[in-house]
């Protein structure tokens, strides 16, 4: 069948997600009407997901360079030097829309896609992370989505054999119609063997490797650039199907060939499949490309050029090979049982030409596809301020409040999730899920990589600039809390419909906040992804600019963990506590208010406090460290007690009326640290000398199993543990209402 027999009408243009103005621009650029296949290519290259047309003007304001940055945004993943001839390669990416439609495969292929982005660059993936957001627990779809997404992430990562070492999960009604699945992969590469995507050389073979192409996922990226409405379930065929076994073979085959000088450039086929990979490679190299689509390995007969170019079948790669090494390359891929097909060649024409069944089905200037996508500076407004905090009962017993919080959906243990992920394969996991950051040893060395994902969407919703900065600050804090030197971040920016000026205002504000924090904390943004249109009808998600951050531990023997280690260690609080209750979980969960401004972020204090704590860890002077985040100081203390199975006694410096705010306020730039008494004295003195706020709170106790706060009824650790561990398994085991 000749797809170009289909006439391109206004309706067909609209179905391809292009506006009539954008279509007019296409005609202007190529000097004629595109045929159906060509329209498909424009639709794939110009959609929001691939072109960043609504966000690019703002993304350009982010800091992306630094002395250790080898590759920033624009490659498949960011690359940062970690010394000794090695670099860390990482990126976080969303797979939101597919995961809502088909949670298992949507999440699985999200993991598969981000893994490919990392090993495409020559890196062996060493860790996966994820950031998940689901609707309210009482929403009828939530349980199904949690079960499917978690099984999908595990199913893919476990099989390919890359440990999933942590992440974050939140529940909120704004995600009822749009869950978020953000997957991050971190890999390690030799700095002299980094592979990039720009095609080089004229007449070099263009090689397709991996799985065969089927009709799955056609227009996936276009689907992911739209608001959900009625009929979302009919979009299931646009979700791809993952095959982690084939990806494992592809990983090993690619790394085996990458050890030799055969591959000139390489790009994985992700969103918009063969279209985006071939267009990006040729355009980046300033070349042209000709493909003979009859040579593409297919798993179904009768696929048209349109379908071949737009399929999002998984586990595929496109490479430009050194022609002298093509036979060797074929042997490697055939050893691993993978398809290997020379499907075209590089040219000097600056055009993409597609031949199929004796016809030329497409002949377009690459620049029009790659560089001329429309850019929008969309109108934006500062979103309205949240309501002021109404009076609430401050006399709630802190033990009761803590018990409630520790067993609430956003603070309960995520064990039910991470026990379904193989977090130990590769035998280098040295900090398992549940701590401030996951840590893997750099294989064969005594160095480590610490990894965290963070954002507090309710803060961003209340004040996008502060919320954006807080996400970076918390990531920085989580890395410092294990003793790692923060290196760089990847961002995964999830928002609603950018054509709504208030949503656009959230995007603009959050990017400003992220940029401010990244500059202040010396953490450049080296890779990222934008996911817009996370919206169902008029209801947009809470703005969720997730930050994935990576830090370096110079010596893994000097790594901190959060559990109390011994009795009679002194517990110190680093940072200033004003008792900020706005947007706190206490306010939401105990006082039933989502109100007030988020806690202010003092980036200079974050930096000084983080560096101070990191220095103490490096000197080996601390027995336990934990940052104060969601839920505030008392929640942090409880998490330390549960992790170490030891109690604590603390006293609060404020008078009774303010104790709630002291214990549950979410002031930033704070850490709880523990040290032996003689060390603690030295720490207090040193903090004073450096003008770091440092308060003695109390001491750890033996296994008496209690948290004691002056003047209140002691809190039983057993009760806390039962509430903390019980909520998620109980929720998942319960029958839907």
């Amino acid at each position, binding site marked *: 069948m000749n797809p170009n027999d289909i006439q391109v009408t206004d309706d067909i243009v609209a179905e391809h997600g292009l506006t009539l103005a954008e279509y007019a621009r296409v005609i202007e650029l190529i000097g004629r009407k595109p045929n159906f296949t060509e329209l498909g290519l424009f639709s794939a290259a110009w959609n929001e997901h691939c072109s960043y047309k609504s966000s690019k003007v703002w993304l350009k304001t982010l800091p992306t360079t630094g002395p250790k940055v080898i590759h920033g945004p624009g490659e498949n993943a960011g690359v940062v030097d970690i010394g000794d001839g090695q670099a860390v390669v990482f990126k976080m990416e969303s797979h939101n829309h597919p995961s809502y439609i088909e949670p298992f495969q949507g999440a699985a292929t999200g993991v598969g896609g981000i893994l490919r982005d990392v090993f495409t660059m020559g890196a062996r993936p060493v860790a996966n992370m994820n950031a998940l957001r689901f609707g309210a627990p009482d929403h009828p779809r939530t349980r199904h989505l949690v079960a499917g997404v978690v099984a999908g992430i595990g199913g893919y990562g476990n*099989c390919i*054999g890359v440990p999933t070492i942590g992440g974050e999960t939140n529940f909120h009604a704004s995600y009822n119609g749009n869950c978020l699945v953000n997957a991050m992969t971190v890999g390690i590469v030799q700095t002299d063997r980094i592979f990039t995507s720009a095609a080089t050389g004229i007449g070099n073979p263009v090689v397709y490797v991996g799985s065969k192409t089927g009709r799955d996922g056609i227009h996936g990226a276009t689907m992911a650039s739209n608001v959900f409405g009625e009929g979302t379930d009919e979009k299931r065929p646009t979700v791809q199907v993952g095959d982690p076994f084939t990806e*494992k073979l592809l990983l090993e085959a690619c790394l085996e060939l990458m050890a030799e000088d055969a591959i000139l450039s390489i790009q994985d086929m992700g969103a918009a499949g063969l279209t985006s990979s071939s267009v990006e490679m040729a355009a980046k190299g300033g070349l042209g490309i000709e493909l003979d689509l009859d040579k593409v390995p297919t798993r179904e007969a009768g696929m048209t050029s349109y379908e071949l170019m737009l399929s999002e079948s998984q586990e595929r790669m496109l490479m430009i090979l050194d022609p002298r090494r093509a036979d060797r390359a074929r042997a490697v891929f055939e050893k691993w049982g993978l398809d290997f097909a020379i499907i075209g060649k590089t040219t000097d024409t600056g055009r993409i030409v597609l031949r199929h069944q004796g016809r030329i089905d497409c002949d377009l200037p690459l620049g029009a596809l790659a560089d001329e996508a429309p850019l929008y500076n969309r109108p934006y407004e500062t979103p309205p301020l949240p309501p002021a905090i109404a009076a609430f009962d401050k006399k709630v017993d802190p033990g009761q409040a803590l018990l409630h919080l520790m067993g609430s959906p956003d603070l309960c243990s995520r064990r039910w999730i991470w026990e*379904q992920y193989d*977090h*130990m394969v*590769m*035998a280098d996991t040295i900090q398992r899920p549940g701590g401030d950051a996951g840590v893997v040893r750099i294989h064969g060395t005594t160095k480590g990589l610490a990894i965290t994902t963070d954002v507090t969407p309710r803060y961003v919703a209340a004040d996008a600039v502060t919320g954006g900065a807080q996400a970076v600050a918390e990531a920085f804090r989580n890395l410092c809390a294990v003793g790692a030197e923060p290196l760089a971040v990847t961002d995964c920016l999830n928002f609603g419909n950018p054509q709504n000026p208030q949503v656009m205002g959230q995007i603009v504000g959050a990017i400003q906040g992220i940029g401010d924090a990244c500059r202040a904390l010396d953490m450049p943004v080296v890779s990222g992804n934008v996911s817009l249109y996370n919206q169902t009808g008029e209801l947009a998600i809470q703005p969720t600019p997730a930050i994935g951050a990576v830090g370096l531990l110079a010596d893994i023997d000097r790594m901190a963990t959060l559990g109390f280690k011994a009795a009679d260690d002194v517990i110190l609080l680093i940072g200033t506590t004003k008792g900020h209750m706005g947007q706190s979980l206490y306010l939401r969960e105990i006082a039933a208010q989502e109100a007030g401004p988020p806690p202010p972020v003092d980036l200079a204090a974050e930096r000084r406090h983080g560096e101070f704590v990191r220095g103490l860890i490096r000197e080996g002077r601390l027995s336990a460290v934990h940052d104060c985040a969601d839920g505030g100081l008392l929640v942090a203390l409880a998490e330390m007690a549960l992790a170490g199975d030891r109690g604590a006694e603390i006293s609060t410096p404020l008078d009774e009326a303010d104790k709630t705010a002291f214990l549950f306020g979410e002031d930033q730039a704070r850490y709880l640290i523990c040290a032996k008494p003689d060390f603690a004295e030295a720490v207090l003195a040193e903090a004073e000398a450096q003008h770091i706020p440092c308060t003695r709170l109390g001491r750890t106790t033996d296994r008496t199993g209690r948290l004691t706060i002056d003047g209140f009824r002691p809190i039983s650790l057993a009760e806390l543990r039962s509430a903390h561990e019980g909520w998620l398994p109980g929720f998942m085991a319960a029958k839907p209402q």
Partner: protein
Amino acid sequence: MKAAVIVFPGSNCDRDIADALAKICGMQPHMVWHKDQDLPEGLDLIVLPGGFSHGDYLRSGAIAAQAPVMRAVKSRAEAGCAVLGICNGFQILTEAGLLPGGLMRNAGLKFICRDVWLKVDAADTIYTRSYGSDAVIRIPVAHHDGNYTADERTLDKLEAEGRIAFRYTDPEGNIADTANPNGSARSIAGVLSANRRILGLMPHPERLIDPIQGGTDGRPMFNSLMEAFA
């Protein structure tokens, strides 16, 4: 000591076990591709590593059990060579008929990755001698299909012949349903062949051999092997 690790397509603990052998036993094992017909001469030990051979898209281990190299593994096993199957390797050994029984989907139906407690039931083997009798150890599991099953006669026979190498227990060494992570019959975590030279187990001793990993209870297995083949 001379060892080989078989690499199947989809194996993903092959490097981990090779590292453990190098680190503790001081030897680099031969890495043997599943399509090879022959094994190196003079092997003391063959390891079938963990992973998802052929994606486990059929029954776990069923396709790998038919790999060309498995004929050589069987003939070496018959000649008395030690064969260790961990996780997917255990599944392959049962599918290949080198060990009795089979591994079904976990009773809870979910993949499980966590530390479990094991009691060393058979301490008189080349794998377990360094643990001592009735030792209780902590080792991680990571599997979807670890639910050991066999008919009652086989289970009775395994018990009578002392061929249950490890059982899942609580930290005090007591057998209990709550301490059995996957529903395995009689809490069996590892079994031995009749000649006690073949061991299959679901837990991963190679993952806990260094304090930085959170424990060292995997180490004595490699110490035992090193002593056996010194």
